[in-house]
C-alpha cells in the first residue's frame, strides 16, 4: 500500500457553487480521514469567505455545458438563482450543508481557512470584510511554507 496522504492544501479560485463545493467536500473529507487540511481562498473564491457574499454563491448557468442548457436560456434574468435554488433543495435532501454552515463546520474540524493577500488587495478587502473563521490573510510565500510536505490541490 502507498504511503497515506498526511496533509492537503486546497486552493479555491472560483466563486461559483459548482466551483466551491468540491473543495469544501475534499477539505471536510480530508479531516474526517485524519488528514491535516488547509483551505486558501483566492480571486473569486474570496466570495466564500466574504461576509456579504457567502450566502449568495450561485451556479454558473452561462458557459457551463454540463448543465445542458442553451446558452441563451442560461443568460435569462434569474436563471442562475432558479438553478441554484433547485440544486440547494436537492442537496438539502442529501444532508449536504449550505455553504455558510459547511465552512463553519470545516473550521470546527480544525482545518485552516486563509485568504490570499494579492486577491484581498485587488478587491480592496480587509479582515473586517471576511468571516470570523478566516485565520489570516497570507502571501503566496507563506502559503507554500504552510503547504510544505503535503499535497496541493487547485480548484
Amino acid at each position, binding site marked *: *500500500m502507498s504511503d497515506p496522504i498526511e496533509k492537503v492544501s486546497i486552493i479555491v479560485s472560483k466563486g461559483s457553487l459548482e466551483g466551491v463545493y468540491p473543495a469544501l*467536500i475534499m477539505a*471536510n*473529507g480530508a*479531516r*474526517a*480521514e*485524519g488528514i491535516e487540511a488547509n483551505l486558501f481562498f483566492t480571486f473569486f473564491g474570496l466570495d466564500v469567505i466574504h461576509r456579504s457574499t457567502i450566502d449568495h454563491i450561485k451556479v454558473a448557468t452561462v458557459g457551463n455545458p454540463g448543465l445542458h442548457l442553451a446558452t441563451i436560456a442560461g443568460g435569462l434574468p434569474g436563471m442562475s438563482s432558479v438553478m441554484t435554488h433547485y440544486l440547494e433543495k436537492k442537496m438539502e435532501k*442529501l*444532508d*449536504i*450543508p449550505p455553504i455558510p454552515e459547511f465552512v463553519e*463546520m470545516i473550521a*470546527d*474540524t*480544525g482545518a485552516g481557512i486563509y485568504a490570499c493577500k494579492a486577491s484581498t488587495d485587488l478587491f480592496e478587502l480587509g479582515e473586517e470584510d471576511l468571516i470570523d473563521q478566516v485565520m489570516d490573510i497570507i502571501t503566496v510565500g507563506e502559503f507554500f511554507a504552510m503547504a510544505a510536505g503535503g499535497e496541493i490541490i487547485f480548484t
Partner: protein
Amino acid sequence: MSSAIYGGTTVEVNDEGFFEDPGKWTEAMAPEIAKAQGIDVLTEHHWQVIKFMRAEYIEKGSGPTVRVLGKTSGVSIKELYQLFPKGPAKTAAKIAGIPKPRGCI
C-alpha cells in the same frame, strides 16, 4: 484480511483494522483498540460517541459520518475532533468494532 488480538481474543480485521464481524466485539476490547489508535484513556465522552456509533450501526446497518455525529450524538464537531483527532467517525467506528462509515460529507 488479517487478525488482531484484543482482550486475549483473536478477531478478524480488514486491511484498515476494522472488524470483519462486529458481533465479535466486546466493550472490554475498546480500550485496547483505542490505545492502538493513539487514545490512551477513554473518557465518558469517548464512550458516549462509541456507544452511539454502535447503536446506529445495529439499528441502520452502517455507522454515521462526522456530519451526522455532530448533529445527532450530542457531541459537537469541535469536541468530536478533540476526542478523536485522527477522524471522529473513522476512529470511533474502529473502536466500536463496526465497519468504516461510508459517506462524502
